């Protein structure tokens, strides 16, 4: 996993609630056996007419040149539905390093963190402030300080991040390394309980 410390970037607004993982990456693209290349099918059915890459839907935000950046800003309950980690892989592969929303589905949140994509939970009000910005405005996210700042206005909010997950993110550690280091206590547990 890549370490993640700071992001300063323009953003892509997606003011839609309950964005489920079937929209982030439709099931028919889950047939790969590796983690790579999912970015080109990110939001596939919202992005193209009739599944045709030569027919981008002009009003979908990923097809609007003016919006770009490493931060996706979405309406509440982002990532609900299927547990497919492919959703996090697709966001990462497309180039997003953080998703900002007022509410995330649990499994998605874990999957994102396990891949170095930061879910940033902000208040409804702060979310609306971001949606009101212009496309060229930038947002700064500081993982160590757990803050998100709208650079133009200086408005700042802090966000929650589990201290353990924070260490992992800052250093690019992953949970598997940690669990393997606990093998002895796991074996001990098995002897006592199982």
């Amino acid at each position, binding site marked *: 996993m890549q370490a993640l410390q700071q992001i300063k970037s323009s953003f892509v607004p997606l003011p839609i609630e309950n964005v489920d993982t079937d929209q982030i990456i439709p099931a028919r693209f889950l047939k790969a056996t590796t983690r790579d290349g999912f970015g080109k099918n990110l939001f596939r059915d919202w992005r193209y007419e009739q599944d045709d890459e030569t027919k981008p839907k002009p009003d979908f935000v990923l097809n609007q040149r003016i919006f770009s950046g490493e931060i996706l800003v979405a309406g509440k309950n982002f990532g609900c539905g299927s547990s497919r980690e492919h959703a996090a892989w697709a966001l990462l592969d497309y180039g997003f390093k953080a998703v900002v929303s007022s509410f995330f589905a649990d499994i998605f949140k*874990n999957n994102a963190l396990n891949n170095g994509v930061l879910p940033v939970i902000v208040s409804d009000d702060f979310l609306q402030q971001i949606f009101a910005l212009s496309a060229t405005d930038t947002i700064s996210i500081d993982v160590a300080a757990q803050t998100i700042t709208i650079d133009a206005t200086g408005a700042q909010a802090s966000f929650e991040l589990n201290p353990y997950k924070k260490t992992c993110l800052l250093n690019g550690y992953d949970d598997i390394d940690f669990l393997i280091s606990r093998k002895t206590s796991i074996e001990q547990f098995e002897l006592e309980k199982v």
Partner: protein
Amino acid sequence: MAQTLFDKIWDAHVVEKIPNGPSVLYIDKHFIHEVTSPQAFKGIEKRGLPLFRPKQTIATADHNVPTLNQHLPIKDQLSKMQVDQLIENCEKHGVELYGLGHPYQGIVHVIGPELGITQPGMTIVCGDSHTSTHGAFGTIAFGIGTSEVEMVFASQCVLQTKPKTMRINIEGNLPNGVVSKDIILYIIAKISASGATGYFVEYAGSTIRSLSMEARMTICNMSIEMGARGGMIAPDEITFNYIKGRIYAPKGADWDKQLANWKKLYSDQDAIFDAEININAAEIAPMITYGTNPGLGMAIDGNIPLTESITNEGEKKNLAQALTYMGLNSGAALLGMPVQHVFIGSCTNSRIEDLRLVAELVKGRKKHESVKVMIVPGSQQVAKQVHAEGLDRIFSEAGFQIRQAGCSACLGMNEDKIPAGEYCISTSNRNFEGRQGAGARTLLASPLTAAAAAITGVVTDVRELINHN
């Protein structure tokens, strides 16, 4: 101190709690399927690790498999590759596989319980959000991502933060024509698609106690659709009778020992939950969804809410977008609306009891000529039983197409898809945009309501058909 059922099982599986961090949670049983496991196998191979406890993982192929001519090679090359990869990975790493053609093959959440692998007090995970189904047996069962599948491969543990607990009490007798699917659709409509996010739910009360294991599984299955980490029901005599004698169930003295442990699995009388909801079963009607998340549901004879009546801007927009996709009008009724497809299957409603319920209603009747009806047993064993009980005759006489076990039209991944723009009454669990195929329009309902629509060709209040009987 008084403990909830959830606390009892959780505490018994914590290997270690990381200060200010998650817990190392030991996993008793791990189910895998072809879609979310290949990257995890690759991951441990890259690290040069063996599977830590291969005997505690059980595999099947369900999402990608065709449901016709399963004896022939899979036509879709990518699907075939994924299924072949699963076979190769299981062989290489010593994992028991109930793959295509095996008499135990089927949807992962159908086969676990029917084989008796799922037992009270266990922790169970699978790279699939509907793992919550197994909670019906009094287990902590939840869906995980592929990185976490890799964690279980490597250590038989996952890192989890303890969720909050919620109890949903349902009391009273269910009205005529109302079944367990209606209960859960009712709850989700009431508390919304995110209403239980952050919680692990226990379903309790006299209504729940009266339900069969299969009906309980339907309810726990859809816990994830209101955002819950999982759902569970305390085991009782109904649970023990269901498990007894199954292939993997404990036998002899071992059974007695386990049974004594299982009987301790309930929430203590004064256990405190972080949230509690009470529901009167008498209020529940046959349900149907009209939108693109399972929370957008109503009583079958109701009207879609008026967009104008919604004050929250986000919700208003959400509903408007959903109705555009669904081709439905705000304020409209659904009764009498023609549907082109009926899908009876999925890990929510593809067990023998669901199919018996359907058979009872359609016996001696025929499907309407304008609908295509697909009935897909959840497993090879269910299919076998359908045959043994002669239900297949009832279905073919009614003009239903009976297919072979798999996830089928629950998700647009295999060959079974609903064409763009057409309506499907489905017993599955998700009505997301494109879930049953790009552009497909899904109306979630119970097997009874689905069967009623199969007969009439339109959205129908099943209570009318029952009263006619």
